[in-house]
Each structure stands twice: as structure tokens, then as C-alpha cells.
């Protein structure tokens, strides 16, 4: 797939990088003149996916999370990848309120938030290999409104 523009971030799996990742993606996407609401949606979805890589994928161990963002016309593609533990049952993981870490006060709403705030959500995962979360969203340029 050829993008009009793209970027890839490699960040250490530290929780303080959650804010950095979503702000960096938001700054990149702002080239498309998204609305305030669209930017908020994208920031939230990136925050969810990166947090999942850090706390579920890597179980808070130090490693690298990759965040890809590209756009083609007015469609934004985001992919968040980790080489962590992987997800055994993706259907179950995507259920609202399902969490494998209730003791960490996780709500199990991360995938539901990503689904709600983005147009498409695709999860690929292999146990012991890692997880890829792919999301797309169409930007209705500010100038068209």
C-alpha cells in the first residue's frame, strides 16, 4: 500500500510514553485538517492500543512498541504493534468489559472504545509472537464543513 505520507514511531514500553504516542499521532494527522472531535477520537484510540501493548503485550516489561500512521487521501491508517505475549482468543478479548487484568483496575473497554471512535478495527495476534491492531478513520476535512 502506498501512502501519501507516513511515519513510524518506536517507543519504549513505558507508561509515560502513552501520552507521547497519542500526541505524536495527533500532530501527524493534523496535516489533514481534522476536526477537534476527530483528533480526540484518534488520540483516544491510539492511547488504548499503546496502553494494551505495554500492560498486556509486554506485561510491563521493557520492550519496543511500534506505532505506524499513514494517510491516503482523507483516510487515516494506524497500526500499533508489539512482540509480546499475544492474544489467545481475540473474540473474547474484544467483548465489552472483558479484561484479563481486573486486579489492575482495567475496565475491559479498550477495544470497544477503539471500535466506537474509529471506522474500522482489525486485530491480529499470535500467542508468543505478538499483536497488531489496525485502525482506519475517514477525516471529513474542516474546510468542507
Amino acid at each position, binding site marked *: 500500500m502506498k501512502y501519501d505520507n507516513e511515519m513510524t514511531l518506536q517507543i519504549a514500553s513505558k*507508561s509515560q510514553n502513552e501520552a507521547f504516542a497519542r500526541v505524536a499521532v495527533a500532530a501527524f494527522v493534523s496535516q489533514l485538517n481534522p476536526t477537534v472531535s476527530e483528533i*480526540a477520537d484518534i*488520540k*483516544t484510540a491510539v492511547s*488504548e492500543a499503546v496502553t494494551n501493548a505495554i500492560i498486556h503485550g509486554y506485561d510491563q516489561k521493557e520492550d519496543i512498541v511500534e506505532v505506524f500512521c499513514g494517510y491516503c487521501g482523507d483516510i487515516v491508517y494506524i497500526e500499533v504493534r508489539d512482540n509480546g505475549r499475544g492474544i489467545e482468543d481475540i473474540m473474547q478479548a474484544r467483548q465489552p468489559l472483558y479484561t484479563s487484568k481486573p486486579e489492575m*483496575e482495567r*475496565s475491559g473497554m*479498550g477495544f*470497544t472504545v477503539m471500535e466506537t471512535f474509529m471506522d474500522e478495527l482489525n486485530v491480529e495476534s499470535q500467542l508468543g509472537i505478538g499483536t497488531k491492531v489496525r485502525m482506519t478513520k475517514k477525516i471529513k476535512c474542516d474546510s468542507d464543513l
Partner: protein
Amino acid sequence: MKMKFQKKELTLIVSISAEVDHHIAEECREKIEKELDKFQGKSIIFDFSDVTFMDSSGIGMVIGRYKYTLAQGGRTAIVCRNEKVKQIFQLSALFQLIPCYDTIGEALKYTNQEGFLNEI
């Protein structure tokens, strides 16, 4: 991240000024737990008036403290006007347990409600 604690009768008002994600929610949780240890009250108000961003980590943080207020026979309320933040709470159906108000004054009526205090 900034936090402010105020006590009004039986309610601890927790005002948070931050983007509430997993990293910040853990920090908030620790500070609130410390405050609750000293606090002789029953109820909590989460004042999210200055929360400009929240992901699903905020839900867990609120529910965790709601369980505390339940155990104390108290109530929990949220103050929030940011539509995106509200949408996150709505997805989890949280407002059925923990009502959301526009102002601290309204929230206090709920958490410190006279009829309610007489019941307990």
C-alpha cells in the same frame, strides 16, 4: 498532572487537572488512596471539569473508588461537561451506577443528600 482534595461534610471532592490515561490514572489512584486513608467520610466526587482527555483507564479508576464508597455506605458522583469524556463513561454504562453532573454543587446534593444521610 494536578490534583486537589476538598472535604464537604461526608464527601471527598477529588479535582483532577490532567489527561487521564493509564499512566496518570495509576498516579491518581495512589494519591486518592492516601487521602481516603485519612478521610472519615463516605462519599466521593470526581471533579473532571479540567480533564481534557480520558481513555478507558479512567473508568477503572472511578469504579475502584466507587467500590470503596459502597463499602462505606456512601455514594460516588462525577462532575464532567466534556462530551468525549462522557462518551467513554457512557460506553461502559457507568452512569447507571455513578451519576454525572455539570457542577460540584449538584453532585454534592446527591452525595450529601439529607434524606440519604438520615438513612445511614
